[in-house]
């Protein structure tokens, strides 16, 4: 990829700074406020507070943005209401992407589900739906995520852990037994472009075999190169450039054939949880979005059409106001990028739609019930920031996959916010706060600066290839660890207000027994009963398509129809693209 003539930041500056602004505060008013401030500062504010007027809050996964002791109109003197904030559902969407926000459509309560065998997961899905979950997030087990079959030696001892195992379309059939695929929204947490191509193809074949037209399916896939090439620890990686192409292939295919499906979730969450600041989280996801749109427009799609279902996935953690401001900032920034860099005209293509999961890294093992409180604050910040859907982490996640009781409590946390607090009745309730608006501006500029850093490296994919992002992340989490150990970042019951209490033997989730054996037996039968010649043919066709750099999705769907396994399909990718060795973190 060629280095662009101009960075996104330069383009936005050029196209926006020429616009005339209409500041909310008159120069006279500001002058008077300044005089008042000066008098107050020197006579009322104590000397110690004057000296430490600016403070940098140190929080888990924070971003070191300095804060003043008090915010006034002077913090944002040229605030232009219509240009900077406007109305909800209108440009620049700072206040929300829908005019009526939660009055119109409540945030989707989307809890993660998936463990053990397909049958186990099917049962848990039914339990969650019965208790009012309005969407499903299906998580896959480690071998499925890493794209190995359950009978692969690499998978030994790990089948059905941290998610549900899927080897072929037959497992999809069992997971979704008696679940009306076209009546609920289903998020397939497929993480990577490679396994999105594989697993979503299986899902499509399942729908097809049940006679459900693909046009009726609603939900999302993750499909994110950051996850496959940067965040994931694995033993085999395909080259970033090929991975990114599969990401774009997935989008192109889904956009064309499954029009109501969200074809990419630009994932900041796992990157941040891996260890980055909240700014880097967003800068990397936006850079991926920018490069993705460049690729797809070069394939001949207009941005108004191709960007209308892009979605983002954020981690919301401890620094309450920063989290609220961040969601507002990124909403406005994405709008600006779409409008002024890509020339979008369709408002839907300018929307930063997002799903939020509360931060798992911010939960601690010591006194685990404290995590309920942490997650509730995270959830509150996400709702005040205007998220479209939410997953609240369970308090026992610092121990294992949540128990049924803990999973229900997470759902209840959301329901209490939605039904009992009245928070959802008013749109963007913190908008206009001197503090929140100043923070929103500061965060927007910082994200843009980090996008520029990536662009100067040659762009998103190049910044992965060169190891720049790996090193940036590692430097961040090494520092974070030191701050935690030195007690600079305070965590209750961990490094402040420490209790002597031993870790309680809380009731933890235990994986069902015998999953691996059953799954291996099922696979063995599959390999004997399917048409193996057709398997070979479809895999060969897939390999050739990979080599021709043609959109591989139609070939993946053919493979799924032929009952190829996930491991067989990933092996085909590896053969066609070769393996890539990521740079070291240090």
């Amino acid at each position: 990829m060629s280095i662009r003539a101009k960075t996104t930041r330069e383009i936005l500056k050029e196209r926006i700074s020429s616009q005339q602004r209409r500041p909310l505060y008159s120069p006279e008013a500001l002058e008077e406020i300044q005089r008042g401030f000066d008098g107050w500062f020197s006579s009322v504010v104590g000397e110690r507070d004057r000296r430490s007027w600016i403070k940098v809050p140190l929080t888990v996964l924070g971003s070191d943005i300095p804060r003043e002791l008090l915010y006034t109109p002077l913090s944002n003197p040229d605030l232009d209401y219509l240009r900077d904030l406007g109305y909800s559902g209108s440009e620049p969407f700072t206040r929300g992407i829908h005019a009526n926000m939660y009055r119109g459509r409540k945030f989707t309560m989307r809890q993660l589900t998936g463990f053990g065998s397909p049958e186990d997961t099917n049962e848990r899905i039914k339990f969650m739906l019965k208790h009012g979950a309005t969407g499903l997030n299906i998580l896959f087990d480690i071998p499925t995520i890493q794209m190995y079959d359950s009978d692969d030696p690499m998978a030994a001892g790990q089948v059905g852990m941290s998610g549900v195992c899927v080897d072929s379309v037959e497992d999809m059939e069992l997971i979704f037994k008696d679940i009306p695929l076209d009546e609920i929204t289903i998020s397939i947490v497929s993480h990577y472009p490679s396994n999105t191509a594989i697993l979503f193809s299986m899902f499509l074949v399942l729908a097809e075999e049940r006679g459900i037209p693909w046009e009726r399916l609603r939900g999302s896939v993750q499909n994110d190169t950051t996850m496959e090439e940067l965040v994931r620890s694995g033993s085999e990686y395909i080259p970033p450039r090929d991975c990114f192409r599969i990401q774009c292939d997935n989008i192109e295919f889904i956009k064309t054939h499954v029009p109501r499906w969200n074809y990419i979730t630009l994932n900041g969450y796992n990157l941040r949880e891996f260890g980055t600041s909240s700014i880097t989280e967003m800068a990397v996801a936006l850079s991926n979005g920018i490069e993705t749109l460049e690729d797809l427009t070069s394939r001949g799609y207009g941005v108004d059409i191709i960007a209308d279902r892009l979605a983002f996935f954020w981690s919301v953690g401890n620094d309450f106001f920063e989290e609220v401001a961040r969601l507002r900032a990124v909403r406005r920034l994405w709008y600006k990028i779409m409008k002024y860099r890509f020339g979008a005209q369709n408002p839907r293509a300018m929307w930063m739609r997002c799903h939020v999961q509360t931060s798992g890294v911010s939960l601690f093992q010591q006194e685990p019930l404290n995590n309920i409180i942490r997650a509730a604050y995270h959830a509150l910040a996400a709702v005040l920031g205007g998220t479209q859907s939410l997953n609240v982490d369970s308090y026992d996640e610092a121990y294992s996959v949540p128990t049924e009781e803990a999973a229900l409590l997470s759902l209840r946390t959301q329901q209490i916010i939605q039904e009992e607090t009245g928070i959802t009745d008013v749109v963007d309730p913190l908008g206009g706060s001197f503090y929140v608006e100043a923070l929103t501006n500061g965060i927007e500029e910082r994200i843009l600066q980090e996008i520029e850093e990536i662009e100067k490296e040659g762009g998103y994919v190049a910044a992965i290839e060169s190891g720049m992002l790996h090193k940036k992340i590692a430097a961040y989490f090494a520092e974070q660890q030191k701050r935690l150990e030195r007690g600079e970042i305070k965590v209750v019951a961990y490094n402040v207000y420490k209790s002597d209490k031993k870790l309680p033997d809380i009731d933890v989730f235990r994986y069902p027994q015998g999953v691996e054996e059953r799954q291996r037996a099922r696979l063995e039968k599959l390999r004997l009963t399917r048409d193996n010649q057709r398997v070979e043919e479809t895999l060969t066709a897939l390999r050739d398509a990979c080599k021709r750099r043609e959109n591989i999705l139609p070939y993946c769907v053919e493979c799924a129809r032929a009952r190829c396994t996930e491991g067989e399909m990933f092996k085909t990718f590896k053969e066609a693209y070769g393996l890539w060795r990521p740079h070291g973190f240090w």
Partner: protein
Amino acid sequence: MGERRRIKVLLAKLGLDVHNRGVLTVAKGLSSAGMEVVYIGNALPPEILDVAIQEGADVVGVSCLSGAHLTLGSSLMDLAREKGLVGDGVFLIGGVFPPQDVGKLRDLGFDAVFLPGTTVEEIVRTIDSLVGKGTASLNQEEG
């Protein structure tokens, strides 16, 4: 003390587990504390032990956040016992485990078990004291 050979630590992700922030943090911390660290990424027990022997590691540390700590942990320790490595080297495991599994992991033969929230300093201290107890490295010729 100053003349002592540097402690050599082999670190690995156990199996296919995707989470490596913890083990990378530990790798960095141990090497800052003066130890020689070899991090091999994701590996299964046979490979981990083969490399440990080749490298003559004093300590084998594995990281597991996938829930497979008991299954893969026991196959690692069974194999180590088979190869006669238990007692020679120090075996450590860290990751996300229910507290009640700590005892089980120790019963499997791990010399120490680290849960989330453990400081790098604690790990350094543990290694120092365990290696100091007269265990030899895993390279038998050297032992």
